[in-house]
């Protein structure tokens, strides 16, 4: 046995199963959760790491700020309804918005692969500019690196963002209480299916466009109307299910949603049916759930439908008391079943 402490380090993941990283470790499901819980969070533990949220909130000189970072590795880099540039800006803005923070400044790190056409890069930069302008944020610092051909998928982007919190609410999983209603701002699964449809081997023809959208203006309108928001979470990889399970776990409560209330467009459902996917696990980029007092549901729905066209907010469930955390879905026949985080990537199935 060597004396180097690195060699004696015992990896807490079940190494016998996966001695190296799988795509599923980044899929937003259980494997990723495991990686975070077992390796990343304990290594960097701080006051922040036990209240996991889309961004971290801290205070400087009496001002509450939020900070977040996200890397974008989507393939294809251009897809119906957006491209990696749109995602890189909106995704980070949304992570700030989910803490109730007004996004202010962003940084961007571009990792370019040798051979990426200048024209594609230009289009992506224009998308970034456009998305930032729409959201009223400024991209103020950045970095560019180039890797050898074959070492990247054309382009990877990392963005970090800083936002300011201008209200006194604590928008985080721990503020969720039994009795809260759960809303979602629109139909589920469009982004994931739009991306999946372009994959070789699946070759689906759809008119489905990614739902990629900035969410700050919706959050802002709820805040300025005085809605008592308890928690927000944008639905990205891992879909609605993973977001709800994470919140239920942090808040230690029972969330129950109604299958028949879940909004899914007919063509998205069609794609899910033939690929054997469950829309609650499919990725979104412009959808978020809102936890708020039951009494404010109709006002919140009215505000959300007014502020952003194309959003059709619906109430999908409620928060209940429970002796242990769980998320259940009431089937159309009225039976509650457990909703779990997905194990990894959702794969198309035949049976």
């Amino acid at each position, binding site marked *: 046995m060597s004396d180097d402490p690195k060699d004696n380090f015992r990896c807490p993941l079940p190494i016998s199963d996966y001695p190296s990283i799988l795509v599923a470790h980044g899929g937003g499901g259980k494997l990723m959760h495991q990686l975070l819980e077992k390796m990343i969070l304990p290594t960097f533990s701080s006051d922040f790491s036990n209240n996991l949220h889309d961004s971290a909130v801290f205070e400087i000189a009496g001002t509450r700020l939020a900070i977040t970072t996200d890397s974008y590795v989507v393939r294809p880099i251009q897809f119906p309804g957006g491209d990696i540039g749109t995602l890189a800006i909106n995704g980070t803005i949304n992570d700030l918005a989910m803490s109730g923070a007004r996004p202010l400044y962003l940084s961007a790190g571009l990792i370019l692969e040798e051979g990426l056409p200048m024209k594609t890069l230009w289009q992506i930069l224009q998308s970034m500019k456009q998305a930032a302008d729409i959201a009223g944020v400024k991209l103020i610092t950045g970095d560019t690196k180039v890797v050898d051909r074959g070492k990247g998928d054309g382009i990877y982007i990392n963005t970090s963002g800083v936002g300011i919190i201008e209200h006194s609410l604590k928008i985080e999983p721990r503020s969720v209480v039994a009795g809260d209603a759960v809303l979602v701002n629109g139909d589920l699964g469009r982004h994931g299916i739009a991306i999946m449809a372009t994959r070789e081997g*699946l070759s689906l023809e759809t008119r489905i466009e990614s739902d990629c959208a900035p969410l700050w203006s919706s959050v802002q309108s709820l805040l300025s109307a005085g809605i008592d928001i308890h928690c927000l979470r944008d639905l990205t990889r891992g879909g609605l299910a993973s977001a709800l399970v994470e919140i239920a776990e942090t808040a230690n409560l029972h969330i129950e949603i109604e299958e028949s209330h879940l909004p899914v467009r007919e063509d998205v459902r069609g794609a899910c049916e033939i*690929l054997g996917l469950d829309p609650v696990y499919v990725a979104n980029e412009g959808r978020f759930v809102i936890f708020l007092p039951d009494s404010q549901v109709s006002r919140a729905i009215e505000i959300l439908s007014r502020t952003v066209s194309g959003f059709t907010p619906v109430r999908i469930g409620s928060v209940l008391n429970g002796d242990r955390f769980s998320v259940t879905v009431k089937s159309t026949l009225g*039976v509650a079943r457990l909703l779990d985080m997905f194990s990894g990537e959702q794969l198309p199935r*035949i049976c």
Partner: protein
Amino acid sequence: MKYLDEYRNPRLASKMLERIAEKTSRRWTIMEICGGQTHTIIRSGIDRLLPDKITILHGPGCPVCVTPVHIVDKALELASQPNLIFCTFGDMMRVPGSTADLLSVKASGSDIRIVYSPLDAVQIARDNRQKEIVFFAVGFETTAPANGMAVLQAYEENLENFSLLVSQVLVPPAIEAILSAPENRVNGFLAAGHVCTVMGYHEYMPLAEKFRVPIVVTGFEPLDILQGIEMLIAQLEKGTCRVENQYRRAVTEDGNLHAQRVLSELFDVTDRIWRGIGMIPRSGLTLKEKYRRFDAEVRFGLGDGVVSESSECVSGLILQGARNPFDCPAFGIRCTPEKPLGATMVSSEGACAAYYRYRAKTLERTG
């Protein structure tokens, strides 16, 4: 969506449930042999809405679950070869062989592609003539025509870089094996609708007669399954043992003769090992001599090694209806979808995975 939504109508379902309850006077154990039906039953909660007197068992209805370890190992061996594109349905990616699964082989750099159809794999072969393309042809009778058609297309187009790793199994021999087992407690069967779409249901008539069990060919939506159960219970209560067809919109007695012609052109019936169950005589398909060069096992000279399975896993007994997933001491503890001991936990259609996903043990106790 037409032909789906109307069969999910909750009002009609509760009517059907009332009807089933009225008809049931004694204890009955029925088995479905179709992962799709397992999924619908557990997901919609039909098993918990049925009268207590009815027990539903989930048989070996998932071709992914029953693909034996040694074939998965062959898939892993092939997928690791350079200059080869290994194509598969998404389901097979996480099925463990004796040491690894396709996901981890992919992680180490192999070219493994998930396709929707075997015909998409043929297209990949057309587009990559300098590479070998192998498609992992798992499935029951439902999937066999598509797998066969991929070979037919390759044959007619003289596509010499395409082959199948065949693990095709047949349902009736498995039913016969279950009914012949001394511990059998199945009173009636829901037969898998889509298998019968291809094969028809005349093969089930001798089984119903020999073992004195009613069999109802059943569809996949909640109303289909409830109606299938109702028809089965009606027969059980009357003591009849006919083969009936609930899924008439998709199944005829003779099945699809065009699809059957593809099967008889391409395949011979052969003995097959079912994961968790063992060898079942004449329960699978293999490519005929004429198409042997499209058989990946022959083409790449793969050996015959058979590997034993995890000793703790009771998936075989679960598949035969002799155990319930909750009876397994490893369930949810040493065996989870992330770390499956056996195939019934791997496939999302597997009985253990369906129980794990939708009905954790604790929920079962408190709920």
